[in-house]
């Protein structure tokens, strides 16, 4: 009962004029920053940090929370419209969202995306409000082996998107992981694969790879095929998603939300593995799983719900234990520290109003996101009416600026262009790019968790199997791999007979 009362007072505080406006502004900044490839909402949060100096501690959290919620969704706008994920977590949105755009159903894809994201985020915010305490004690049991197991599960989920080609998918994934090892290693400080180029020592950033592989190849294809991405109309109206369409994917949204909440509260896991695992599981569960990748509603709804469901859940370890589970929550932690607020169990006793105002703000932000998301998506959708020649030129310039902006370094532009050529070539010969990108994103995390786990356990590899949570997650990964490969194994056995 006390939680309800506190949440009620949180809503009262969050609905005060300036607090509410702060959430709205943060949300809009997040959606726009997330939608611009290479800018990313994490960069927007980092840039917004100095502005929070002049704010009250609670107001600063509302601002950053708004950017966080809006940004995680915003990445899907560019993923759906131009096949360039604004954030890594929006990668699965390109697999089924962009094919819908190619069919002239951009508005429909965006409606499904924003509804699923808002539902996932809303449930996650409610979880944050009512289940923080028990989840926090569970998250406390996580250490490096569990983080590795969770990342491994994310990598294993790539098998689900293999489209009957597990061998080539594995080659692509491993190539991505190898690219992720370029630069100084996380434990020993020695540079690998730098080939005497000083810039290579600081590694190859996944954002640069992602922009190059997806944006440049896509724009070149746009030029070579004279493809028209303008929304198609039937009976004078653009094809949108009705309430019935949303109801049809309620199962996918529910599964994605549940998974997102669970994965989000694991520190270090975050939205990307959440979205990819949700996509993989949905592909197995859905009756239309075989058609995933061609613009299927469930293939878009499940990862979209999952990635926003990680937002509230990721704040559970931050607020209850003071452990930031992602770059975004680390910036929020920094903002709290700047204002002299120390997150942790004591915060719930010392300043419950602040905590519950943040909870209320997360709930409000997710509801407002439907309107903000549709508004911004409408704006971006209007941009799609631009002639492909102009659209292509600006996508390239934005991609180059995005790559440069990662470290304000021209070398990243060259790397981006090299991956652009590689991505185009890979697409031409049918070599899958998505596993490679996933390898570059999750590979460095897996390596860090693996090496630190091994170092802590004095190089005893059984540590991953003797710890119950780690062993369970790895067991789940194995079951998931076998489940995904079952149709291939069956077809092989039928051929032999």
């Amino acid at each position, binding site marked *: 009962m006390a939680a309800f009362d506190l949440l009620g007072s949180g809503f009262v505080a969050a609905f005060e004029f300036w607090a509410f406006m702060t959430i709205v502004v943060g949300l809009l900044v997040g959606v726009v920053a997330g939608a611009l490839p290479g800018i990313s909402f994490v960069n927007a949060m980092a840039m917004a940090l100095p502005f929070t100096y002049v704010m009250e501690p609670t107001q600063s959290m509302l601002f950053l929370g708004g950017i966080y919620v809006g940004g995680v969704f915003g990445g899907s706008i560019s993923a759906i419209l131009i096949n360039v994920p604004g954030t890594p977590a929006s990668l699965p949105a390109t697999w089924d969202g962009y094919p819908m755009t190619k069919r002239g159903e951009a508005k429909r894809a965006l409606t499904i995306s924003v509804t699923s994201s808002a539902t996932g985020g809303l449930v996650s915010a409610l979880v944050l409000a009512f289940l923080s305490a028990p989840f926090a004690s569970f998250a406390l049991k996580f250490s490096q082996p569990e983080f590795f197991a969770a990342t491994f599960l994310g990598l294993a989920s790539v098998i689900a998107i293999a489209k009957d080609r597990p061998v080539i998918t594995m080659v692509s994934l491993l190539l991505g992981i190898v690219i992720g090892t370029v630069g100084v290693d996380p*434990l020993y400080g020695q540079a690998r*694969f730098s080939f*005497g180029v000083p810039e290579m020592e600081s590694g190859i950033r996944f954002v640069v790879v992602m922009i190059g592989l997806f944006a440049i190849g896509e724009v070149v294809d746009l030029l070579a*095929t004279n493809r028209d991405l303008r929304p198609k109309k039937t009976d004078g109206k653009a094809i949108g998603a009705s309430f019935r369409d949303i109801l049809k994917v309620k199962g996918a949204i529910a599964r994605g939300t549940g998974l997102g909440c669970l994965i989000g509260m694991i520190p270090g896991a975050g939205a990307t593995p959440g979205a990819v695992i949700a996509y993989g599981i949905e592909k197995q569960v859905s009756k239309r799983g075989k058609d995933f990748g061609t613009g299927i509603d469930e293939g878009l709804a499940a990862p979209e719900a999952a990635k926003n469901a990680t937002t509230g859940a990721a704040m559970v370890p931050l607020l209850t234990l003071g452990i930031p589970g992602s770059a975004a929550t680390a910036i929020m932690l920094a903002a709290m520290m700047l204002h002299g607020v120390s997150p942790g169990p004591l915060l719930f006793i010392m300043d419950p109003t602040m905590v519950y105002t943040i909870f209320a703000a997360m709930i409000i932000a997710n509801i407002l996101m439907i309107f903000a998301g549709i508004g911004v998506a409408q704006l971006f959708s209007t941009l799609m009416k631009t002639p492909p*020649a102009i659209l292509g030129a600006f996508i390239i310039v934005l991609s180059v600026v995005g790559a440069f902006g990662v470290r304000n370094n021209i070398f990243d532009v060259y790397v981006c262009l090299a991956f652009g050529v590689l991505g185009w070539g890979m697409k031409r010969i*049918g070599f899958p790019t998505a596993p490679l990108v996933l390898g570059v994103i999750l590979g460095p995390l897996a390596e860090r968790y693996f090496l630190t786990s091994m170092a802590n356990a004095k190089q005893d590899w059984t540590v991953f199997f003797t710890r119950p949570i780690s062993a369970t997650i790895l067991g789940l990964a194995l079951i998931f791999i076998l489940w995904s490969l079952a149709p291939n194994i069956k077809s092989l056995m039928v051929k032999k007979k």
Partner: protein
Amino acid sequence: MASGPTNQTSDQTSQAKGSNPLSLARILPIFVPTALLLAAVILPANMFQSDQTASKIGLGPAAWPDAMLEGMAFFSFLWIARDLWVLGDVRRKLTLSLPIEDTHYHFGKAISGLGLIICYGWLLPILGFALATALFIAIWCLSAGLRNLLVVIPVSLIGTTALMWLFMGLALMPLPRGSGAFDNLSIWLLRATGIY
């Protein structure tokens, strides 16, 4: 410059040519896994610079990339083995093939587009963001078939100014200003547009 549209996949091409299962179009895709296998074998020896030796404490910095490269070599080998088996019969499909959707693909346009993008990246630190971007947008639009100069020139100039405002003015991103005389030109442009 633009080549004619192609509507055949590599498999279809070889099938159309008749019964020869070892035609160039069928053999070419095997070069990809072969190159990856070779890379996986060669790269471990070139992981560190010649004056460095890997740390011997614990697993060492080479353990993870070595394991991944071994995995890549294994799966590349499986890929080659499968494709060699495929080559024995023209009815079997190779692992790699062109996407079916590409019925009218102008390779000439694609190659010229890639060249233009690479030139843009190369000229960026020489000409500076403003000049290189304005030129790139104009040339790209023209090469993509937008021939109306009354549209191309304003789009190029207004677009570049808007991007400069957004990234150099608002986000304070230190985008390249160019070298020598182009640096002075960029500074003049930035002052003229009120960004500096």
